[in-house]
């Protein structure tokens, strides 16, 4: 369980996280979604106590993370930026972390095998590929058999097989009753893995809902109709909740009605249809729609800054 309550974090003038509150529950995978620079990594660092908030508080399993006697048993994290000494082997890295909690060497070997790093475990981590680095980070996160697992962009740099492996791993961890909190900037990835979503933009909470709700609520259905009598059909179906866009003289897009309703109306009025297609916005489009305000703000600021710089 992770509880974030009214957290604000500023770095100088920049507000990275703004009065953010949410709860991450155990037993399911919760996706943490937002465009790049929206404050996801900062929020995760605040939860781990790596950075201190200017206001508000974060709790992991009911206590501030640093107040736990065995923190690695409460939460394990993979942070976005590399957090490994480049001159040290994967094995020594994990062993050093394990020893702070009296975790046996056998557990280190077990995790190296689990994440598939056996062959390179004694090599310097500085030579690891991004994917190998992610695997080592996941091993570090799981070292203390944590009740809460927090992973920042875990599939970055992984090959399709690795991505598949991470998805299964996350779902398995959740089934075991753990709290699983995973960030991503890709909605499609989250839709595959997560059950619940927390969406932020500009450091503020935008949505806190199940993936199903998100998909249904945010997706825009439309019906595409090609007909020589498109204009007449548009007149017939128009109403207060119906929005019609003319794409070509004989091609229109209707929102607010199902394809069944449009087809029936056309048949009743003897209108010839060449095409009747039900269309659904992709998850990525829905996500962009949801976070557009925060992105527009960024663009505005960037433009203003550019103008100021030029002036």
């Amino acid at each position: 369980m992770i509880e974030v309550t009214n957290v604000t974090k500023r770095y100088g003038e920049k507000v990275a996280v703004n009065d953010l509150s949410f709860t991450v529950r155990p037993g399911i995978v919760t996706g943490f979604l937002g465009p790049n620079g929206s404050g996801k990594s900062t929020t995760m660092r605040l939860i781990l106590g790596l950075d201190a908030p200017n206001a508000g508080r974060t709790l992991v399993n009911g206590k501030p993370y640093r107040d736990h006697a065995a923190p690695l048993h409460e939460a394990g994290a993979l942070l976005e930026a590399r957090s490994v000494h480049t001159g040290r082997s994967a094995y020594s890295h994990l062993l050093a972390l394990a020893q702070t909690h009296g975790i046996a060497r056998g557990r280190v070997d077990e995790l190296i095998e689990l994440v598939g790093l056996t062959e390179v475990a004694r090599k310097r981590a500085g030579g690891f590929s991004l994917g190998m680095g992610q695997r080592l980070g996941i091993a570090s996160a799981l070292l203390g058999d944590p009740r809460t697992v927090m992973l920042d962009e875990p599939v970055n740099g992984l090959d399709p097989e690795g991505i598949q492996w991470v998805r299964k791993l996350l779902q398995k961890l959740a089934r075991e009753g753990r709290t699983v909190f995973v960030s991503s900037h890709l909605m499609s990835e989250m839709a595959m893995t997560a059950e619940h979503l927390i969406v932020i933009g500009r450091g503020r909470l935008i949505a806190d809902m199940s993936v199903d709700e998100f998909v249904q609520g945010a997706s825009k259905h439309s019906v595409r109709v090609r007909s020589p009598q498109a204009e007449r059909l548009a007149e017939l179906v128009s109403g207060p909740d119906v929005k019609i866009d003319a794409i070509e003289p004989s091609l229109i897009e209707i929102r607010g009605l199902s394809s069944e309703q449009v087809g029936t109306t056309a048949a009743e009025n003897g209108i010839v249809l060449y095409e009747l297609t039900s269309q659904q916005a992709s998850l990525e489009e829905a996500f962009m729609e949801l976070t557009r305000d925060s992105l527009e703000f960024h663009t505005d600021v960037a433009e203003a800054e550019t103008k100021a710089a030029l002036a």
Partner: protein
Amino acid sequence: MSAVAASTTHVGRITQRRVALSEWTKLRSVRSTRWSLLATLVLIIGIGILACVVFESRWPHLSPGDRRDFHPLRANLAGVNFAQLSIGVLGVLVITGEYSTGMIRATFSAVPKRLPVLWGKAMVFGAVAFAISLPAIFIVFFAGQGILSGQHINIAFSHPGVLRSLIGAALFLTVMGLFGLGLGAIVRSTAAGIALLAGIVFVLPPIIGLLPTSVSDSVNPYLPSNAGGAVWTINPDPHTLAPWAGLALFAGYAALAIAIAAVLMKRRDT
């Protein structure tokens, strides 16, 4: 996939002893440690023996003035002046290596109270620095005095102050390493840490030397490296502190650096 649950794994609570063990693993698993410690050994023993060989072979040709300035222990421990830099730099690296690579985030995620990490590093690195320095100094003493005895210009182990100087030199190097650790933890950057250490040890004394003698004589003994130097010197000039007082002051500087580092480490974002 079966290994995730780790039903057989015991996860204990954080203790200072466990954090120190972790720091020992970290220290011995990077190359910079091996190279810096090897350099320290080579500098103490190599330069000390070289100095003795030169004095022994040139002795019949030396002027009375050079003979008067010669001190068998000072020549013998000449390498300590260089080893203070290699051990001090390693002290800096022990902490700044974590900041420069991002390892510090993993470290502080595992030990979120943070200060046990600093204490653990100081304990482990201090013990290692002493364990390397002390044998090296005894080796160079017996080897060097053996060489000097060829011209009967050696000093006996039983001579007053010799044993204190030898142990003192090892303690001096240990404190120098801890001083480096403290400075490194304050500035968090390898380049800045090494520059600060080298500045205090090598640049500060000549700058003080530019001041009028009356001022520099009263300031000099209290400079970190001069204060620490008093403990491994026999026949000190009148402007040095007493041996153990000097070491205590030097240790005080190191303790102050580590204390400042502790306050900052607890507060700063990572």
